[in-house]
């Protein structure tokens, strides 16, 4: 039997980058092939080539033993290749049926002669969707509006969309990034079922745990090249991590037990509305003490973003109270919070963390440009600012041609280091001041970064804690939450369902909480924090 999909010597250059360097890749029929690699390793480029979104500069693509040229996604679909993109290709206001049949609509046969104005036959399309949904165990409601569905369901819609087009080769690009651990496990069961029914699957990920859970074959890419392929039986986590990064990696973070001090941040019954004026945060209470890291876990979209914005003065608080070192800061402005000792690493570093068109130097003083020693009255002291920037570039190991380079020209890891340098230097400058310990709010601090940068940033966060800061860590990566936090709060639909001790917390327990399932033990009367 010829391989389902085979790429030979694929090379793809982008301006200034060799994204794929003579990559070979073989997907056997009826297997789940995990493609592992860091961000920027070239996985997505390779898959986009196989799906016809990019054209390779060199190399061949074989589909089921036939040499082919795939010049657009339509041809890929015609060859039986379906792709579920990391950022879903769904149209939110349309129904599930409309989304799935888009581009391959079922039409009322009597109106076919009207050409493009032929009437849609939603009923027969919905029937076909129900059938696929039953066959592969992908529960969806054909009449639901896609924008109303949770991400897990949207992902099932994407998979059905590929199956609806008779795809027998499925490319799943980071499908678990948006799922709880339980949902991910369900997806693996579905993937197993699909393979049993003759499908072949490429599964792109950077999470080692998942590879062992589901893959038949593992291929690892690094820096645009294929490092190697192996069977799960031959692999260990350490080996795969080393293949991904190119050097030995310390997977666990070394940190001393927390020595919590006085309460720094106290949040009492806070309510926050989202942009559509719906309640996004519904009576959240929490407390973070000096010298501890509180991890806020939860599937994205459960109010973490709104809560973070409220805590950092970027969004109006609709109810409740926020105290910072005992002072009421419920309606404080971001400037006042900065002055009171809050550091913020925002979720979206491009939109809210940096001014991309400004040089590194200016980005480093974004919160302190207006005061001594950076400014005298209305005049900026560029000599002082430059000295300070160079110093931080050195301390935080920011790889940049110079402090005059625009932030937008740096890699993601170095951009994040600029933000960390700005926020942490401000906090340490304040440390020891009479009015209490500093607070660091870090939202998705390592999203999209390479392992090296992740290690660096994790170490810095733990250092800040050990220096006495209170840290609130918001992350969609459960691994990150579990390895860094001292306590873990789980957010679901605007509530904190429970706060648990990180030393005893298990992945399964947190996963259930993230899905909104409270264990019978945690009765409603049991207040959060009671676990301590």
């Amino acid at each position, binding site marked *: 039997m010829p391989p389902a999909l085979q790429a030979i010597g694929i090379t793809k250059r982008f301006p200034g980058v060799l994204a794929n360097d003579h990559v070979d890749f073989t997907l056997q029929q009826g297997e789940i092939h995990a493609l592992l690699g860091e961000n920027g390793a070239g996985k997505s480029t390779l898959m986009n080539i196989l799906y016809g*979104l990019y054209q390779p500069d060199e190399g061949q693509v074989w589909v089921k033993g036939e040499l082919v040229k795939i010049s657009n996604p339509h041809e890929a679909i015609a060859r039986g290749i379906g792709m579920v993109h990391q950022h879903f*290709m769904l149209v939110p206001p349309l129904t599930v049926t409309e989304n799935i*049949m*888009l581009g391959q*609509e079922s039409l009322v046969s009597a109106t076919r002669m009207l050409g493009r*104005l032929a009437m*849609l036959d*939603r009923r*027969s399309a919905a029937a076909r969707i129900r059938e696929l949904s039953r066959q592969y165990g992908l529960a969806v409601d054909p009449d639901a509006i896609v924008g109303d569905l949770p991400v897990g369901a949207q992902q099932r819609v994407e998979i059905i969309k590929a199956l609806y087009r008779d795809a027998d080769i499925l490319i799943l690009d980071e499908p678990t990034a948006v799922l709880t651990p339980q949902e991910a496990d369900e997806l693996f069961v579905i993937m197993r079922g699909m393979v049993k029914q003759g499908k072949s699957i490429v599964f792109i990920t950077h999470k080692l745990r998942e590879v062992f859970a589901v893959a038949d074959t593992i291929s690892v890419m690094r820096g645009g090249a294929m490092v190697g392929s192996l069977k799960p039986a031959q692999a260990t986590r350490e080996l795969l991590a080393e293949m991904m990064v190119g050097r030995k990696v310390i997977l666990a973070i070394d940190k001393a037990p927390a020595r919590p001090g006085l309460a720094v941040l106290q949040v009492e019954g806070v309510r926050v509305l989202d942009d559509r004026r719906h309640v996004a945060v519904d009576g959240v209470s929490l407390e973070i003490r000096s010298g501890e890291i509180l991890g806020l876990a939860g599937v994205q979209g459960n109010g973490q973003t709104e809560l973070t914005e409220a805590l950092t003065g970027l969004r109006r608080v609709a109810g409740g109270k926020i105290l910072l070192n005992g002072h009421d800061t419920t309606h404080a402005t971001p400037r006042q919070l900065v002055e009171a000792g809050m550091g913020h690493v925002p979720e979206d570093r491009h939109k809210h963390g940096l001014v991309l068109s400004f040089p590194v130097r200016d980005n480093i003083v974004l919160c302190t440009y207006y005061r001594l020693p950076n400014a005298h009255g209305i005049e900026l002291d560029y000599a002082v600012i430059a000295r300070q920037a160079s110093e931080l570039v050195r301390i935080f190991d920011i790889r940049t041609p110079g402090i005059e380079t625009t932030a937008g020209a740096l890699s993601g890891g170095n951009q994040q280091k600029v933000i960390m340098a700005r926020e942490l230097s401000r906090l340490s400058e304040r440390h020891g001041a009479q009015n209490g310990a500093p607070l660091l709010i870090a939202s998705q601090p390592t999203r999209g970064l390479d392992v090296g940068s992740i290690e660096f940033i994790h170490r810095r966060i733990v250092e800040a804690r050990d220096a006495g800061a209170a840290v609130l860590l918001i992350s969609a990566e459960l691994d990150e939450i579990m390895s860094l936090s001292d306590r873990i709060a789980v957010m679901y639909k605007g509530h904190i369902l429970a706060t648990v001790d990180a030393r005893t917390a298990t992945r399964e327990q947190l996963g259930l909480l993230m899905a909104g399932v409270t264990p019978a033990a945690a009765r409603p009367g049991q207040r959060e924090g009671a676990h301590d």
Partner: protein
Amino acid sequence: MVKRTSALSDALQLAWVRLRRSLTTILLTAFGLVAAWALLNLVIGGQCDGKCVVDALAQTLRVATPIAFAAFCGVLCERAGVVDIGIEGKMLMAAMAAYSVNLFGFQLLQDALGPVAAGNVSRWLALVMAVASALLLAGLHAVFSIRFKSDQIISGTVINILAIGITGYMYRAFLAENLPAGPGTFPLVPIPLLAEIPVLGPILFHQKPLTYLMLALAVGIYWMLFYTQWGLRVRAVGEHPRAADTLGIDVLRTRYINTLLGGVVAGLGGAWFTLEAVDVFSPLMTNGLGFIGLAAMIFGKWNPFGALLGALLFGLGNSVTATVSIFRPDIPSQIPQMLPYLLTIIVLTGVVGRAVAPAADGQPYEKS
């Protein structure tokens, strides 16, 4: 056969669901219309035994016609993701083209065909030219905003200014000097039987051709957008062009077609001014109705029926203005004249519920 009926019942069911979703808009509009009826009766009803109230409502539909055409143009363009604020300019251009062709066509044909036939031929010819001239400007907008990815607001503004310039120049150069007797507008076309229905007949079925065409277009565009393959693809392109692209839908082509279709509809709206309302062209005669059409589109949440309701509301404001100033000279005319613009502001500040534009509205599409 069975399949067709089930598809039909499906369609009906869907229509009902959509209707329910836009219930607040419909209720508000109905309330507005009833309130206006009561107000009209109160203010002027006594003067004419209610007959002038019916007249005012027939006038409402007439004035709503160009606004609705403008709104439909907006719906067609923006559903595919192209913002078009050049509707005003297209209508002005079409109004002038229609008038010129009507006038000179009539003069040329008068001797050969006699005045009645010449009038008929020249009016239809004028309608075609009106559409063609608006289509030309729409093509310009399409090339600017789709091919060259320029800012669509700027492109639309350019078209508005261009139209004001061209029509102003043409007016001074050819039309203003010796205005001969006009060839006349389209005659009223009462629909047999239906026009006899009391109250509704004179309002709905005693109108001119473009008004009927506008009502038919409301139904037609609605059906096309929500029940056909074309409509599904257009909506996908306006919301998430990349998703549509990965499924083999030609985003740029869809946008070109819709922008041009919008031009056709705007041309019909422009023709209304000089072929249905009055048979004379004057500079700037569209008087902002193209922009009010955009407000009607937003009021109608980018849905043709909603847009029609919005247009009717503005039309009502307009006809109230006219009626009140005739029957109540004691009320300063400036006050009722503010009404349509006041309504526009109220609608655009989102009093009638938050309207959400198609997600990719106004964003040029770049293939990766």
